[in-house]
C-alpha cells in the first residue's frame, strides 16, 4: 500500500512532465499526449484523495474525466487533421496566424 505522499509525488512528476511537454514540444500530437498526461496526473490525485477520505465521489469524478478526455482527444485529433490538411504541417511554431 503506497503512502499518500508517494502517490502525490508521482502525480506531481506526471503533471510536470505534461506541462513541460506542452510548453516545449512542437509537435501537436505530442502536445496532445502531454495534455493527456496532465489529465491523468489529476485523475491520480482524485483517486488518491478518494481512497484517503473513504468516499467514492473522487473515483466517480476520475471516471468522468476519462470520458471527457476521450472526447477531448477526438476533437483535438480532428482539429489536427483539419490543420494538417490546411497547412501541410503539424508543427505549432509554424502555425502563427494570430501573430500581431
Amino acid at each position: 500500500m503506497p503512502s499518500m505522499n508517494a502517490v502525490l509525488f508521482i502525480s506531481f512528476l506526471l503533471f510536470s512532465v505534461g506541462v513541460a511537454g506542452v510548453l516545449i514540444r512542437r509537435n501537436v500530437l505530442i502536445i496532445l499526449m502531454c495534455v493527456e498526461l496532465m489529465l491523468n496526473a489529476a485523475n491520480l490525485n482524485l483517486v488518491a484523495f478518494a481512497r484517503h477520505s473513504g468516499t467514492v465521489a473522487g473515483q466517480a469524478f476520475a471516471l468522468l474525466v476519462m470520458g471527457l478526455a476521450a472526447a477531448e482527444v477526438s476533437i483535438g485529433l480532428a482539429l489536427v487533421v483539419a490543420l494538417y490538411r490546411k497547412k501541410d504541417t503539424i508543427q505549432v511554431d509554424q502555425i502563427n496566424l494570430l501573430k500581431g
Partner: protein
Amino acid sequence: MPIHSSVLWLIPFLPLFGAILNGATGRWVKNTRLVDTIALGSMVLSFLLVLGCFAQLLGQAPANRSVDQTLWTWFDLGGARVLGGVTHNTMNWAYKFDPLSGAMALLVTGVGFLIHLFSTGYMAEERQNGTYYRFMAYLNLFVFSMLNLVLGANLIVMFLGWEGVGLCSYLLIGFYFEKEFCAIAGKKAFVTNRIGDFGFLIGFFLLFMVFGATDFDTLMGMTRTILARPEITLFGLSHAPTWWFNLIGCCLFLGACGKSAQIPLYVWLPDAMAGPTPVSALIHAATMVTSGLYMITRMNFIYVNAPVALALVLFIGALTALVAASMGLAQYDIKKVLAYSTVSQLGFMFMGMGAGAFTAGMFHVFTHAFFKAALFLGSGSVIMACHHEQDMRNMGGLRKLMPWTFASMGIATLAIAGIFPFSGFFSKDEILWRVFEGWYNGGHFNGSTLNLVTWIMGMLAAFMTAFYMVRLMVMTFFGEYRGAGHDPHGLTVPSEVVHAAGHDDGHDAHGHGHEAHAPHLPQEVPWNMWLPVAILAGLALVAGFLNIPHSLHWIGSSHFSAWLQPLLYQTGAHEAAEAVPAMEYILMAVATLVWAPAAMALAWWFYAVDPTWARPRAFVKRFPELFRWVNAKYYVDEFYQAAFIGPCKQLGAQLWAFDSLAVDGMVNGAARFTLLLSHAMHWFDAKVVDGLVNLVAWILQQISLGFRKFQSGRVQNYAFVMFLGFLVFAFWKFLA
C-alpha cells in the same frame, strides 16, 4: 375728307413680299427668270397700285387729296410727358398717300421698276454665280423701305423707312463684299449716315417734346397754336417758339445732310459708287439721297418758321453745290464724276428749300431723278460695254458704237446743264431764280446778302455742271475708241480693272469670249438695258413742262407747284411778292443762252476740238497745285481721317488698352488672388489639418508597435503565460 383705302398697305408690302420670297427661296432656284418674275412683278403691281391711288387723288378737290390707311396701333403714347402736359396720342402704323408722298411713290416705283429692268441685263454675270437673287431681294427691300419713308403718315414710320434705306444702301454698296474696298465703302456710308441719324433723332425727340404728336397732319395743324405761345420751356430752358423751331430744324437738317450727302457728311456718296451701277442710279441718285429733301418738304411748317435753320439749309446747299461741282471737274472715273454731280445737284435742291421754294426744290428732285438715273444707267451700259472699264481716258468714240445710249445720255446731259426746253432748265433755273429773288426783293426768309452770295455760288456751280458733263460726254463718246490698244495721242492709262479678280469665271457680261489680248470693240447693250435709259431720257426731256415758271405762263402753268400747295404751311407773309417778270426773263435767257452754252463750249473747246487734249494739259501744267487739290477732292477725306477718324481710332485704342489693362486686369487680378488664396488654403489643409489627423494615427501606431510584440501567434507562448499565471495564482493562494 381724306379717302380711306384698304389696299394702300400693299404698295410698300408687295416689294417686301418679293424681297422675302426671293431672299428665302432664291438660293435654290436654278432659273433666275423666276427671280426676275417675282422681283419685277411685285414692282409692276406696286406701280399700278400707285397709279390707281394717284388717279383717285386727281379726282378730288385739292384740299381733300389724301388717301389714308391705318394698319394697326403700333404703340400708345398715352402718358408721355410733353410740353402741353401729358399726350393722349396713339402711334399708328399708318400710311398716307397725299400729293407729296404720292408723287414720291410714283417716282420710287416708276424709276425703281425701270432700274429693276436695267438690272436684269446689267447683273447678267451674277445669274451664273448665284448671287443674283440676293441683289434682287435687296433692291426690293430697298423699295419697301423707301416707300415706308415716303408713305409713312407719321415720323416713326418715316424713320423706320429712313433706317431701312440706310441698311439697304449699306447692303448694296457692299454687294461685292469679297472686294475689300466695297466692304469699306459700305461701312463708310453706314457710319456717316449714323451721324446724320443722330441729329435726326434729336430733332425728332425735340419735336415730340414740343408738339406731343408725331402725325404729320396733327403737327401741321398745331403749328399756329405753338407759335402763338410767348415762350416754350423745356429742360429748364425758356425760349421763344422760333428758337426751338430753329433748333429742331438744324437737328433735322443734320439728318438730311447725312442721308442726302451734304457738307460735311457728303463723303460717303462718292465711295458708294463701289456698288453695282443700278444701285448707284436707284439709291444714290434718284431716290434715297432725296429723302432728306422729302423730309424737309414734309417739315416745311417747321422750316418756314425757323429762319436760322433755313439760312443754314440755303448756305450748306449752295456750298455743297459749288464744292462738289468743282470736284467733279477733275475726276476720270465716269461714275465718280456722276457721284459728285449728284452731290452738287442735291446741293441745288437744298438751296431751293433754303430759299423757301419747297416746290422748286421738290421739282428738281423729280427732274434730277430722271436725268441722273438716265446718266447713271447709261454709264453702267458704257462700263459694261467697255469690259468693266471705268476710266474715261480709256473710252472714247462710243457714239457710233452705242447710239441708243449716246442719245439718251446726250438728252440727260442737256437736261442737267439746263438748256431749254429740257427739264433741268425749268427746275434748276427756278431754284436759282428764287434764290436771286430773295436778294432782289429784300429776302423772304433769309438775309438778302446771304441770298446774293448763294446765288453767285449757285451760278458758278451751274457753270461747272455744264462743263464737267460735256467733258464726260466728249471723253466717253467722241473721238476714237481708245480701249482696244488703239491710242494715237497716248491718252490712256493703265486700266485699274483686274479681270481676274471679280470676273474670273471666264465669261463676259454680254456673252463674248474673254480674250485679254484682243478686246472686242464695245457693242450696244441689249434692249432691257438701253430701253430704261431711253425712257428715263424721254422723261428728262418732257418732265420740265409739268412746272412752267410764272414768267413763261403762255406755255403752260405750274402744275407741280399747285399740286403740292395743300401741303405747304401758309405763313401769309409773302403771298403778294410774286416774281418780277422782266428780271426773270433776263436771268433765264442768260442762263440758258449764254451761261450754260458758254460752259459747254469751253469744255468742247478743251476736249473735243483738239483730240490730243493739249489745252487741259497746258492748264494743268500752268496750275499744278490747283489741279492736284481738285483732283484729290481738296483732301477732305484725308482731313476727316486725320481730324476725326484717326483720333476716334486713337481713342478706341486707348480705351481698349484701358480695358485690357485695368478692367481685364481687375478680373484677372481677382482670379489670381483667388488662386493664391486657395493655394494657401490647400497648404493649410494638407499640412495642419491632415497633419493632426496623421499625428493621432502615428501615435496610435507607435503604441501598438509595443503591443504587437505580445501577439506572437505561437500557441505555446500563450500556454506558457497561462501556466505562469496559474503558478502565480497558486503561490498567491498558498502564501495567503
